[in-house]
């Protein structure tokens, strides 16, 4: 198969790559760029473990071809913290016991980040809708919702604009 040329920005870093036209964005991130914080749980867009932020919106990277992302900006979980300093959502997930096995956590945090980006003061129902595409089998979602509420209430610096 003929490879296609792809210019893409991931976590603020520009990449110029040659990829298979049928390569999923998920595999580009995990296999080519070694960003393994993005997880695969179903491969068909149902679990949300593969969630990344594409031009400010949360998407399932298992359903998107790398080639569709030419010229676009992607944020993965590795790109959320500011060096050692955790993003307020990451910190809130720790503070509120919202992490158990952690497998859903990267996708969950990114869905929440995209929500807060669009809606800085969501209601509980809006939070539940925004993360309803991210399955978690461990937490029953209670502490996750609390964490997102707490992060939304935080000082509204420009942190979520980073995505």
């Amino acid at each position: 198969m003929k490879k296609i040329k792809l210019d893409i920005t991931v976590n603020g870093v520009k990449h110029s790559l040659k990829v298979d036209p049928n390569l999923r964005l998920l595999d580009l991130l995990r296999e080519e760029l070694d960003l393994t914080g993005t997880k695969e749980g179903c491969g068909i867009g149902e679990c949300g473990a593969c969630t990344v932020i594409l031009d400010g919106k949360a998407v399932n990277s298992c359903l998107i071809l790398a080639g569709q992302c030419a010229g676009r900006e992607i944020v993965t979980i590795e790109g959320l913290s500011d060096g050692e300093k955790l993003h307020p959502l990451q910190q809130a997930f720790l503070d509120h016991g919202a992490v158990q096995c952690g497998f859903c956590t990267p996708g969950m945090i990114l869905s929440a980040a995209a929500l807060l980006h669009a809606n800085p003061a969501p209601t509980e129902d809006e939070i539940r809708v925004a993360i309803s595409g991210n399955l978690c089998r461990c937490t029953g979602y209670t502490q996750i919702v609390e964490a997102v509420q707490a992060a939304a209430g935080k000082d509204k610096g420009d942190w979520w604009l980073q995505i």
Partner: protein
Amino acid sequence: MIGLSPLRVDGREKVTGAARYGQDLKLAGMLYAKVKHAEYPHAEILKIDTARAKKIKGVAAVLTAADVPGNTAFGAVIVDNQPLAEDRVRYLGDAVAVVAAETAEIAEKAAAAIKVKYRELPAVFDPREALEPGAPEIHEGGNQINHHKTRKGDVAEGFRQADLVIERSYSTQRVDHTYIETEVVVASLDHDGTLTVEGSHQNIFSIRAAVASFLGLPLSRVRIVQAALGGSFGGKDDCMSVLSCRAGLLALKTGRPVMLSNSRESSLIESYKRHPYFLDYKVGVKRDGTLTAMEIKVVADGGAYASMTPFVTWRSVVHATGPYRVPNVKTDIYGAYTNNTYTGAFRGFGSPQITFAYESLMDEIAGELKLEPLEFRMNNILRDGEITATGQKLDHTVSVGQALQAATSAAGWEEKRRRFSEENRTRLLKRGIGLACSYRGVALGAEGVDATGAIVRIQSDGSIDLTTGLVEMGQGLKTVFSQIAAHELGVPVERVQYRRTDTSTIVDGGPTVASRSTIMGGAAVRKAAIAAREKLCAAAAGELGADPAELTAVGEKIMVASDPDRAIDFTGAVALALAAGMNLSSFAWHVSPPIWWDEEAGKGNAYFTYVYACQVAEIEVDPETGKINVLEVWAAHDVGKAINPEAVRGQICGGVATAIGYGTLEEVELVEGVTKTVNLDEYLIPTAMDVGKIHSIILENPDKYGPYGAKCIAEPTAELCAPAIANAVAHAAGKRIRDLPLNLERIVLGHKLVKKQRRAR
């Protein structure tokens, strides 16, 4: 430190994406494996033709049972599970061959190129039919995996004393664990001949036993290492042994690292599930609501392999009457082989099924007697010092009454029961509130030896290594164990590093199951940390001019307990100990108190202690569509002592959500052995919109056998919500549903829809 909730010690790597799970492993020269699954649920294998597959470029090995150097079968209780089927396939998740290739795509192509000739055999899919004479025999010796019983008093006499005898039948369905991470291993051979299998393992020692026996290697040359684990809930045990055996064999034959992972589809088809149960209850009761007798018969669908069926059904037989005073009991439980996907351990382990039956039944009996369900239960529940159905005298605080009171008063039970009944006459959407309570034996019980160990090593700089054979799967074990070690050594949690679980670092301390970790492993960690502290105290005693027994460790100091000014730095004490030639590594072993079971008589002191709980569910149901909304849940659990309350709350909320799925949504659909729900678009688990508000109520009645009085929490949380919802549906809609899940068809039609084929296979 005990009773506080420090941040999870493994939290940071999980929120940053740094945590390395099985699917993230990559070794130089790694091959990718795929299996060739069976094509019939029951068939004799006549010929496996691998010639075409072997010729495909990039294929490194194609192996079958004929290549297995050791025992082709393994099993913790009954040795019957074949990672590569030898002469017969018994369910569609069996593998007949396994391929390793340079890429996953090549391996997939090669697996498809394998041709197998079968002779189809008659199959059986209903466990009750499987136990009939003349049923197709799945394993030599018949389809009965086991029969457990309990006997107490004389049920015939009990029924004679009854004013009313009620008979009811219930059934529960097959459900999947649906950990968000599917199963994966990487097997590799070290230069010294040790085979290492790293992956999403729950029980590293049982997996090691299976791999060593399959490959004909000594245990000392097999090393099972746990990667970060993306959920397990009892599910990553036998199926991980299967994956590890297959990948291990490929690594041994090719000399290269091999990754074998299940896609979600293979996971749903291949991995074991929760047992479907068919339960018949007959109960005698007096007019005043006193129970006189229970006769119970249960058949459990074990599927193609025994796996944990003997232990799962044993837990059921012990608890089958529920936490009630019943003078006469006769319970019989049978596990049966079928050609369905096999069933095994799943959070709850034989209790969610029976809890659904006996707690639905308690409401039904109360209804027949025109008694309030809460009052009826309060009159019959076990109290301190009373005798269980297995003849065990309870010598701890029996808190089921306290749990019932706590959950119902938090929920506003009486007022809502009355108000909803009135409002429902005119409401379109019907509201209901229901409850369920239970008792649960802690740890393994008389199903086996229960013992485990811990190693605390203090390094020369005062940092601390903590090692046990028990695993983190999300429940917070690393944090709780680190808290215990830190508490006993008087240092902050950050000073403790919980080592990755690896069979080569500590002796076999049993599995991380049965909610045994805090009470068993926690006790071992505490002993090891105390032993280490005593060494530091001995080393510091001279310098402090005190007797070692007068010293304690607090605030990173070793000090005279009665005179905190006489103190020496923790690291200073470490230096003194090392200078004196002391060994600062402490190993401790903890064995459970004595318990016993007489299988013949059906009696015994089954567990050394029990936990008690009650959950109340408030729901809304649309009688037109049958849709149930779980609005709020109140969950009261006696944990003995909450070492980390936030982690306890996490367990409660997670268990409740699992039970909401079990109660209202989930079912692995098998038609003649074929899995119809093969991915998460068809197998639905609760989303954030399906789980209502969950209120955790932690009760603490310290137990003499637990570290700091702690007992357990993981599993009891998952056994109550399904019957609480069923009882709430009965309250709301006036319809008693006796089969799980309580789905739309059952509520509207009163029975299950016969499903059309949803997906061509």
